[in-house]
């Protein structure tokens, strides 16, 4: 319990040093603390506490930089001066940081030396250099190392080569370890990286109108091109159409292509033009006999039977039925002479009365 408290205090101090020093680059903070957190990850239950502590520290500063600047007008020259001050301070502070790091490392257990070294390198590196991302730091380390080694290595035999490779792979290993330790940070960090240049937000409607067009006025889009518009629509449809993603979408596609019967199933589909025709026109066909057919006699009888037959035919359209009747009309008229001879072609109504 005591040790836990201790860690906390140390951490607080540790962090304060950092945050005091470089308030602008707080990206370093999560790294450090995650580093610590990571090291003791598995066993120590202090982790949770530290993490919560760290989290609270990681939280957005209450005042954003811009706001801060607005409120407490800080001139650039003055800040430079401050930096100079800081450098002087660093010397003093360094000692206390070293002490704190040592304490932390001991409290965490495990490889004390390594932890301490890592902590310190991070902290001091942080103060001394402005680049703050972890990846930058790591990349830097790697470069340094290879340089050191390469300088004397002008003459290389295979053994040397191997050595160099080995060193490289070692440093790679270190990189992994560091990477590993950063995963915590990654999982906690959901805000954008701060290392990149500040993002400036632009409001899309912030511009000043040009004042060319008037708000009111008749709408006039000029000459219309029908085919062009059709083709435009077609292209747009093609650009946004996708293969059907389920059965229903496939059915929709088929319905649009006319391949499948329309829903709800209607057994009069395809007879749309018949919809406008009243059923009586299908059934009462006698009116088409008026005017040419004898009012009585065998031809009349025959034609009425034709009409009855047609009225029961479900497959002809009204026009076809009419045409059918008209065919008979023409047929009988072409035989008019014979029919008149035998006395069955008599269109006058008086004669019908006379015959009865």
């Amino acid at each position: 319990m005591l040790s836990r408290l201790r860690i906390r205090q140390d951490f607080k101090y540790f962090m304060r040093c950092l945050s005091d020093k470089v308030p602008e680059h707080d990206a370093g903070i999560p790294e450090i603390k995650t580093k610590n957190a990571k090291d003791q990850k598995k066993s120590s239950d202090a982790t949770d506490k530290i993490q919560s502590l760290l989290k609270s520290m990681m939280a957005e500063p209450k005042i954003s930089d811009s706001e801060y600047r607005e409120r407490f007008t800080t001139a650039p020259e003055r800040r430079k001066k401050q930096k100079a001050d800081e450098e002087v301070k660093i010397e003093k502070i360094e000692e206390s940081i070293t002490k704190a790091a040592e304490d932390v490392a001991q409290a965490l257990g495990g490889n004390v030396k390594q932890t301490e070294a890592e902590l310190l390198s991070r902290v001091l590196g942080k103060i001394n250099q402005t680049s703050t991302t972890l990846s930058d730091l790591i990349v830097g380390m790697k470069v340094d190392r290879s340089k050191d080694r390469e300088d004397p290595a002008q003459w290389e035999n295979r053994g040397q080569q191997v050595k160099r490779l080995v060193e490289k792979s070692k440093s790679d290993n270190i990189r992994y370890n560091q990477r590993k330790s950063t995963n915590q940070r990654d999982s906690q960090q959901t805000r954008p990286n701060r290392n990149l240049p500040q993002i400036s937000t632009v409001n899309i409607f912030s511009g000043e109108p040009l004042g060319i067009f008037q708000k009111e006025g008749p709408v006039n889009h000029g000459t219309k091109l029908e085919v062009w518009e059709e083709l435009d629509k077609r292209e747009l449809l093609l650009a946004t159409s996708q293969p059907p993603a389920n059965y229903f979408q496939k059915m929709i596609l088929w319905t649009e292509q006319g391949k499948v019967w329309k829903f709800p199933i209607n057994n009069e589909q395809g007879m749309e033009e018949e919809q406008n025709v009243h059923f009586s026109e299908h059934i009462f066909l006698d009116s088409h006999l008026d005017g040419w057919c004898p009012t009585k006699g065998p031809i009349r009888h025959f034609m009425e039977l034709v009409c009855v037959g047609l009225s029961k035919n479900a497959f002809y359209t009204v026009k076809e039925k009419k045409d059918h009747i008209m065919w008979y009309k023409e047929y009988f008229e072409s035989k008019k002479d014979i029919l008149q001879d035998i006395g069955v072609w008599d269109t006058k109504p008086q004669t019908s009365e006379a015959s009865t």
Partner: protein
Amino acid sequence: MNNIIKFAQSATILPQWSPIFASQFHTSSALCRVVSGKYRITKKRDKPLTYEMANPPHYIAHRKSWNSWNTSSLKDGLRKSETAVEDEFIRRFITGTWHGLVCSEVIIKRQFNHIRVAVIIRRAVSPTKMYFLLGYSEEMLSNWIQCPVTLELQTVDSYQDVVFKYI
């Protein structure tokens, strides 16, 4: 009992004076041997049967199902003969197009004017070829029958996988 015998005896006399009765009465014993849809047992007992073949027709709707699903065979159904011929056409087309690949009966299901053809296929050709055949047979069939046709395939490794028993 006596009555029945008497009636039977009298029935033998009936044809003499009534040709109508004669045509309506079976007087010989019925041959209760249904052969269609059943498979003969081989000597070596090595004839493979699928589940569908292993169940004789009287098990339809009990142990197995129909090979053609449509409403024409219901009472007052339309286009009975046409449907039957069309189905046969589809079956032949499928077994011919998927030559040597079809491992089961071709099941044909009709809904409105949509025909679904289900079949079990052997994995003897590459999936790419299968997709080609699939698109080809769907489009060919729908052009012939003038309605959308969908193939529903299942694949098995070999004929052995569909064998239900040997007789």
